[in-house]
């Protein structure tokens, strides 16, 4: 299938819409603000009025791209994908704010911030500086921005002897930008957990997957990013390596969105897509085959688990729950909320921060009520948002496994 046909496949899915409105009732954004006319409206309905000329419906930018509409649609309409593409046309025609350009490029932030981490972090936590950033850039003063780790995951890994492992499973670890610049600890733990499970882990050269660019409607640049990333990963995929991702949304980019939303279609991407696994999906697969190490020590904690929207987009259920269930004495409270509100970079924006906080308020309330020791969640930006909204520390499921294995 060519990219063009794939594009049409997304638009053509609007033919399946019977107007049932289920997506509208599932949409977390439409539920809290009238500024967003809702997924049915901006998706299958408005799409019939697009295609011949100017983009005229700026309200679609209030879509957070969480993708819940697509998941909720019982007829198979690719609602979120239709919206994303319409947003890209809008940005192309009407230009995009510098802010969107900036927050959509984690490698750029990483390269600028990492060497001067203390200063950068000071600035990021300084009220006055944040006020200036809000006024000049439109990044909300209270929005949860991560702290630079100072030392990147890769620079740590370079000095590291290859983790000893007896096993023969070959894994190429796709750590993503956030692990590299903001949460290198997660990367270290992921590598250790994989090695503990008999994986030979390699670190292919890799950059940003382009997801933040895509969700900000900057498609051309996003395609450039993802193509470069895929070019780096493809040789491993073709040699039979399994590509394992700890960033669930970036993994989804490789699996589905590069093709369905950006319309990238080539052999490299196909090879990479078919070999990419979310880390919990991968480990749960081992567990199912009876090949997961189960030497877990008791972890006497209470944790909540929130499956982020992008994780749900994988259509793999909630493998993290299966894994956490194996840990003795761990009490896991599954939260039945759809979205924390942040949706990548959405909740950072001045005009959307309040909406994002309202979207997340149900989740925050549940977490506070559960009084967990830790709030577990697969996606980095959601973790930051959860911590911002609840004051609780939020970790990736793999960090719990790492602790249960007693690896450090």
């Amino acid at each position: 299938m060519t990219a063009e046909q794939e594009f049409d496949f997304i638009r053509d899915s609007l033919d399946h819409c019977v107007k049932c409105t289920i997506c509208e009732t599932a949409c977390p954004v439409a539920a809290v603000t009238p500024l967003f006319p809702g997924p049915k409206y901006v998706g299958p309905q408005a799409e019939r009025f697009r295609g011949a000329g100017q983009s005229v419906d700026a309200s679609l930018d209030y879509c957070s791209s969480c993708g819940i509409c697509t998941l909720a649609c019982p007829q198979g309409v690719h609602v979120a994908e239709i919206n994303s593409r319409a947003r890209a046309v809008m940005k192309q025609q009407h230009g995009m704010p510098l802010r969107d350009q900036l927050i959509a490029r984690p490698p750029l932030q990483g390269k600028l911030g990492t060497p001067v981490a203390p200063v950068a972090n000071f600035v990021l936590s300084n009220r006055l500086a944040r006020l200036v950033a809000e006024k000049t850039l439109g990044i909300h003063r209270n929005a949860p921005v991560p702290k630079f780790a100072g030392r990147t995951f890769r620079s740590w890994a370079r000095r590291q002897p290859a983790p000893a492992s007896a096993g023969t499973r070959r894994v190429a670890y796709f750590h993503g930008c956030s692990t590299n610049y903001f949460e290198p600890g997660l990367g270290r733990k992921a590598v250790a957990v994989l090695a503990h499970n008999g994986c030979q882990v390699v670190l292919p050269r890799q950059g940003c997957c382009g997801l933040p660019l895509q969700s900000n409607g900057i498609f051309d640049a996003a395609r450039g990013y993802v193509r470069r990333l895929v070019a780096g990963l493809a040789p491993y995929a073709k040699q039979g390596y399994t590509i394992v991702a700890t960033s669930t949304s970036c993994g989804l980019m490789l699996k589905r969105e590069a093709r369905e939303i950006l319309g990238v279609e080539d052999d490299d991407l196909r090879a990479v897509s078919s070999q990419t696994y979310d880390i919990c999906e991968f480990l749960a697969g081992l567990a199912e085959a009876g090949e997961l190490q189960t030497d877990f020590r008791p972890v006497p904690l209470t944790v909540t688990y929130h499956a982020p929207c992008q994780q749900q987009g994988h259509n793999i259920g909630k493998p993290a729950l299966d894994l956490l269930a194996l840990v003795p004495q761990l009490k896991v409270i599954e939260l039945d909320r759809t979205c924390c509100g942040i949706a990548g970079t959405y909740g950072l924006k001045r005009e959307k921060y309040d909406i994002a906080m309202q979207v997340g308020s149900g989740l925050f309330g549940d977490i506070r009520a559960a009084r967990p020791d830790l709030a577990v969640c697969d996606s980095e930006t959601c973790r930051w948002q959860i911590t911002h909204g609840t004051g609780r520390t939020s970790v990736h499921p793999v960090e719990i496994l790492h602790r249960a294995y007693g690896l450090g």
Partner: protein
Amino acid sequence: MEEGRHANIRLDAVAATAPIECEVLVIGGGSTGVGVARDAAMRGLSTVLVERGDLATGTTGRFHGLLHSGGRYAVKDPQAARECIAENIVLRRIAADCIEDTGGLFVTTPIDDPGYADRFVAGCTDTGVPVEEIGVAEALRREPRLNRRITRALVVPDATIDAWKTVWTCARSAAEYGARILPYHEVTAVTRAGDQVTGVVARNQGGETVEIRAQVTVNASGAWAGLLAAMAGCRVQISPGKGIMLATNHRLVQTVVNRCDMPADGDILVPVRTVSVIGTTDTLVSDPDDWAVTRAEIDQMLQAGENLVPGFAGSRVLRLWGGVRPLFQDHAPQESRDVTRAHAVLDHRARDGVAGLLTITGGKFCTFRLMAQDAVDAVCAVLGTTRPCRTADEPLPDSEDRHYYVLGSRLAGRERTLLDEQVICECELVRRGRLTDEMARRPAPSLDDLRRAVRLGMGPCQGGFCMYRAAGILHQTKHLSAAEADRALLAFLEERWKGYYPLLHGDQLRQAWLDDWIFQGVLDAGHLPLRAPARRPDTETAQST
């Protein structure tokens, strides 16, 4: 940018007790008749128009939507081609708001005669139709869904034109110039005094009889012109040529796409507002009111679409309709497509020895203004006056600024009222205010009239979600009693079903099921109280005490 003022006239409701007197009486409220009424009124003639149904419910409201460049007739019917391109230019000038400037492509598909393209270019050049060849790759870039096996692509200034909007703005302009526009007045007899036609007798919606006396009567009743002429004892030979069309759920192409070959069935795919329309066929029928669509014709259209846009046959089809061409010919034709598309003004004094009656027939939608001009020139000749025609220069209402209609206009308009106003028809984005304005203009609006006027219920759900809302609003705004609103709803559902059930499969069948659950399951439409409840005396006493 938002359209919508085009139906801005109040329509006459009341039956005239005394006969209506006028200089010019026009029979038929299609593009031709309304064009004649506007032209005559602009020339200062007192004018009345009668139409048996709502305006544009004959062939005009059932056409393919194409503002021809003339390309289609360039080889076969050069006279029609010349008229088309001349009027194409005029209509772009005076009716921009009714036109979307889509452009047109003639493409040589695998089933077309490869030699036709050269004859086509020569024909266009001869008849003055601008034509430009582009590379196949460029054509596919513009229209990615086109059949990749096309071998040539020629660009012509085809466009699409909205019949309802054109007719309604013409009628509004005519009314502004003093014409009386009387929809729902069916001519039942043509009156004569000796060899002179003196007017007509018409029956209105309430079943009352209205007499209209005119110095000149213009028969602009399209495919029905033979029947009307016969009422005056005259003979006009019309060969009604039936054509059918199918509309897809959304646009598959943004340009009018024609097969580059001699005109044939299903050879044009037209982007009409939110949908793509494939058409058409051409079969002689004996009665313009009596024709049906067969399953074979539907399959034929789906296959024809497949040739232009691979995958077409699998796309969601919303509805199906047919129209009857008023093809004029003095001798019985063999083959409907062989009849000329050019028009004729017939003076029945010369033909049948009956004075005061003219028939204007043949032609096309896109030549309606020229047809009207010729007809009113003839009217003036009968009345012994010469008055210049100004319709080629004076824009229609709402088209003064010469901005073409664009597909996104309703979406843009909606964006401005997003927070303040309810959408009644979600598919076609009809705002509540737009609907209630339209209701206020009409004495007794039917849901079907509203459908045509504002495109209510024209989208994917085919009224499933908006018609019960509209019926409720009609009642709430005191246009209809509860029982009348119920009846209106049922009448609409039955009417829609006709254009719907022969095609039901796939997505549209699923939609029909959901709609059926809404109407039968939730609203119990099968058991609506269609009669006003009898007053119960006891409750009345209770209230009065």
